[in-house]
């Protein structure tokens, strides 16, 4: 019997549930969370996740610093955020409780690994008396479960060491919540079988413990009822999978390379939270992907520039401190007008800042962080799945216009997974790299490496190795058309204007702003990047209450959409929520000389639906 058997206990139907798992970094919390998330998605729920890593690799067991969290929102409707606060909190030790209780809703279900609430652990978590016993948890539905003992009981006779037994206990917890929410356990069982293929005893042990957890829920009288969250109905039809932002970014770029008929070059230096892009690409060599783990971020982008000159789809990726290092070379890419995608997975700053936390505070850096007038297109993904499309678009534009393009994501998007409707490869647009690959195309005229396409202002991307197309480029100002070095005053002025015009010209192909709500009204909530989900959810709630609130999201930060200026004028108030100190607001005010309201919480955490609803209410006429 698998753990998918139906429960005999009464089942309450819920529209949506937010569950948060928390424990020591060694407790397998991220794995537990992902598996529950995958099972929920398979069951047809819409899902959104938020992994909350500790900054340390492995802080000493039991400490607050070592607590790892994973929050999952699953629902029978279209949802956009991992949820503000949890309906269910599962804690593996006192530190996990101390660090996470603030996320649990009043009267929420609290499942605690009671075994671990002993003096030493309590002390490390900063507790005097055990909170399980001092009545301080009276506002919650507390379920105390001796996970370690129960796991141990289940594994009698397996001949496992205490340490090995301890490592299985997360499957007990997983089994229990699977029972609680009537999830089908087959997927977990398959995963256990795959993972422990070479260790049959551990495979059996984990299967046993997983079932034991399920059975415990079904059989003990502790739980009076279980819950079910039916499959979502308002989700667009299609084939779905779960995807995290970093993987989606990599796949979007591989898809673009494929559609352009180019190989892909990825130059990078590991950095949290961008490293998984490198890891993903490193496993895709059969798609013509070459990865270069450089000695630093400067070498990474410079190698990518070399590969771009060598006609590959060149990409470099990093996080904020790495962008700072790359900025000189980004200027070189601007001057040489080569296609290049620069991915910035933003994290908390300034300086080393909060490496494992999310933030949106690199917008001005990527727009302006270079010497001289050095304009560059900038796009931002709004969610994990959207990172695929945005990355594809960034590559398309880079190739079409021969420009370096910045793609912004952030820590929350990079690591948070969400269901993603898988695109049909054939339906993705073809990208025409349009290489100048034959001297005959010059029609006997001279080769002019900076001759511009009338429409795009792009210069030719010359196929290296072609006889007769030898040419030289570099970082010194160039003569228009010939590309030779030029110190001519008027030419420099013209080239500065041309480089700007080329980026500005892209605006012509940006689709009109997509609005959720009326095209005019009291408040326009304008987002970019990861606050998208929470903002749209808050707006929908208020719209349901009849308020004249509209939401729009910017994928394009530079150039700005042509219709944006007019749109802003249609609303009494424009509110821009950002996880920074108001960077897009600065850009918009500079662009339109308009007063714009801002909402900012810069705490390394995603913005919540509740705070955004309040922020909107604040600017709505009373």
């Amino acid at each position, binding site marked *: 019997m698998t753990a998918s058997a139906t429960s005999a206990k009464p089942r309450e139907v819920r529209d949506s549930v937010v569950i948060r798992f928390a424990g020591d970094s060694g407790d397998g919390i991220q794995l537990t969370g992902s598996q529950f998330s995958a099972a929920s998605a*398979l069951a047809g729920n819409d899902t959104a996740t938020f992994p909350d890593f500790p900054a340390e690799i492995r802080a000493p067991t039991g400490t607050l610093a070592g607590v790892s969290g994973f929050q999952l929102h699953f629902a029978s409707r279209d949802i956009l955020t991992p949820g503000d606060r949890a309906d269910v909190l599962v804690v593996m030790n006192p530190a996990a409780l101390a660090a996470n209780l603030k996320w649990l809703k009043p009267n929420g279900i609290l499942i605690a690994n009671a075994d671990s609430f002993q003096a030493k652990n309590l002390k490390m978590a900063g507790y005097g008396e055990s909170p399980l016993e001092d009545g301080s948890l009276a506002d919650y539905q507390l379920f105390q479960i001796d996970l370690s003992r129960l796991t141990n009981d289940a594994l009698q006779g397996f001949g496992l060491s205490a340490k090995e037994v301890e490592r299985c206990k997360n499957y007990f917890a997983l089994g229990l919540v699977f029972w609680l929410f009537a999830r089908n356990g087959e997927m977990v069982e398959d995963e256990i079988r795959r993972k422990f293929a070479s260790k049959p005893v551990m495979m059996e042990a984990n299967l046993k413990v997983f079932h034991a957890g399920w059975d415990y829920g079904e059989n003990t009288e502790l739980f009076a009822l279980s819950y079910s969250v039916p499959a*979502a109905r308002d*989700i*667009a*039809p*299609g*084939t*779905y*999978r779960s*995807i995290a932002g970093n993987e989606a970014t990599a*796949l979007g770029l*591989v898809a673009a390379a494929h559609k352009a008929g180019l*190989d892909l*070059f990825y*130059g990078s230096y590991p950095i949290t939270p961008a490293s998984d892009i490198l890891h993903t690409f490193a496993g*895709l*060599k*059969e*798609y*013509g*992907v*070459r990865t*270069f783990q*450089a*000695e630093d971020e*400067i*070498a*990474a982008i*410079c*190698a*990518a*520039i*070399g*590969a771009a*000159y*060598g*006609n590959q789809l*060149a990409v470099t990726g990093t996080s904020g401190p790495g962008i700072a290092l790359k900025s*000189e*070379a980004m*200027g*070189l890419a601007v001057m*040489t007008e080569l296609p290049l995608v620069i991915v910035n997975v933003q994290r908390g700053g300034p300086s080393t800042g909060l490496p494992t936390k999310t933030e949106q505070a690199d917008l001005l850096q990527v727009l302006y962080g270079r010497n001289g007038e050095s304009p560059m297109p900038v796009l931002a993904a709004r969610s994990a799945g959207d990172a695929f499309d945005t990355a594809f678009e960034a590559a398309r534009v880079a190739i079409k216009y021969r420009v370096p393009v910045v793609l912004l994501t952030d820590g929350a998007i990079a690591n948070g997974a969400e269901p993603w*409707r*898988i695109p*049909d*490869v054939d339906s993705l647009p073809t990208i025409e790299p349009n290489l100048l690959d034959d001297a005959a195309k010059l029609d006997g005229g001279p080769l002019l490496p900076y001759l511009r396409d009338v429409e795009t202002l792009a210069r030719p991307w010359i196929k*290296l*190795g*072609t*006889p*007769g*197309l*030898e*040419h*030289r480029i*570099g*970082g*010194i100002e160039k003569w228009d058309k010939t590309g*030779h070095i030029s110190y001519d005053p008027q030419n420099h002025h013209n080239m500065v204007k041309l480089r700007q015009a080329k980026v500005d010209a892209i605006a012509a192909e940006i689709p009109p702003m997509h609005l959720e709500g009326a095209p005019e009204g009291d408040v326009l909530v304008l987002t970019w990047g990861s606050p998208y989900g929470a903002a749209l959810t808050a707006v929908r709630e208020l719209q349901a209450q009849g308020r004249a609130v509209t939401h729009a999201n910017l994928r394009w930060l530079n150039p700005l959409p042509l219709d944006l200026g007019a749109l802003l004028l249609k609303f009494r108030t424009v509110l821009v929520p950002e996880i920074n100190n108001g960077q897009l607001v600065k850009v918009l005010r500079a662009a339109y000389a308009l007063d714009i309201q801002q909402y900012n919480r810069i705490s390394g955490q995603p913005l919540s639906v509740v705070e955004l609803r309040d922020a909107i209410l604040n600017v709505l006429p009373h």
Partner: protein
Amino acid sequence: MTLATDIALKPKDFATDQDVRWCPGCGDYAILAAVQRALAKQGIPPHQIATIAGIGCSSRFPYYMATYGFHTIHGRAPAVATGLKVARPDLQVWVATGDGDSLSIGGNHFIHLLRRNVDLKVLLFNNRIYGLTKGQYSPTSELGKKTKSSPQGSVDNPFLPMSLAVGAEGSFLARSIDVDAKTLADVLAAAGAHHGTALVEILQNCNIFNDGAWDHLSSKEFRADQTILLEHGKPMIFGANRDKGIRLNGLRPEVVKIGENGVTEADLWVHDAHDEDPTRAFLLSRMEYPLFPVPVGILRSVQRPVYDALVNAQVDEQKATRKANLQGLLNGRSTWVVG
């Protein structure tokens, strides 16, 4: 890999129509001419070659070479060239760099290039000064050197570029002098033929800011006595009368006079450029004026795995063994259907 053509190439096939803008009398002119001659002789046509440089007087090199070319930013030529070579192993890629460009700001890329053994040919123009910024001391300037930025004399102990390169696992190390056309031609030809990173240090005169820095080695008067031309498999002999040699005394090279104190050619150190053990190259890298004649020619030339070839081999192998299927990749391991 690039292939030599049948059509005979001439040095001028490698020259562009750009005005050459070095100071009159600069050593760079001779180097440019030597490279153009060497490439013509090598026979790979200009379109199969790329010349990549950083920033500095010497780094203007690409503008004068009728190959593909890229004048990048200060110190970063090895990185740009690495990306290009990995992407385009079919091109022969040359890097032109100065002592400041490669050993100061670009030091990190320089050592990583050597350890990776990317198939690049690196011309290091060593004039012991920052030329383009008008004469500050460089990482190869001698201790005590007075320049604009060191009016009381520099207190920075210099690198010996060849020692650093040995320490960084360099597989091909050679040295020549701007005015020594013959040796330059030989080492350039060998560098072109080497598979892996071929580093050629060229002692170059900056007649404006460091005039005569190498006179003790380059002038006809001194060259025979104060340099030694390394020839693989041959005993190390030098001197205007070819009567001096280098003998190894345990770990210590010493200058001996052939014919004196019973020393014969047979006692001399026989140069082995292909020794897998880099110790000999290290010893050569430390033979300095005035205690020793300074070695020119090929200090070291050994074969070891080449980075760009390995990267491309992995790609080819994966392509051969795991069929690319983009739709399958997008689908991932587990999917579900809605609607």
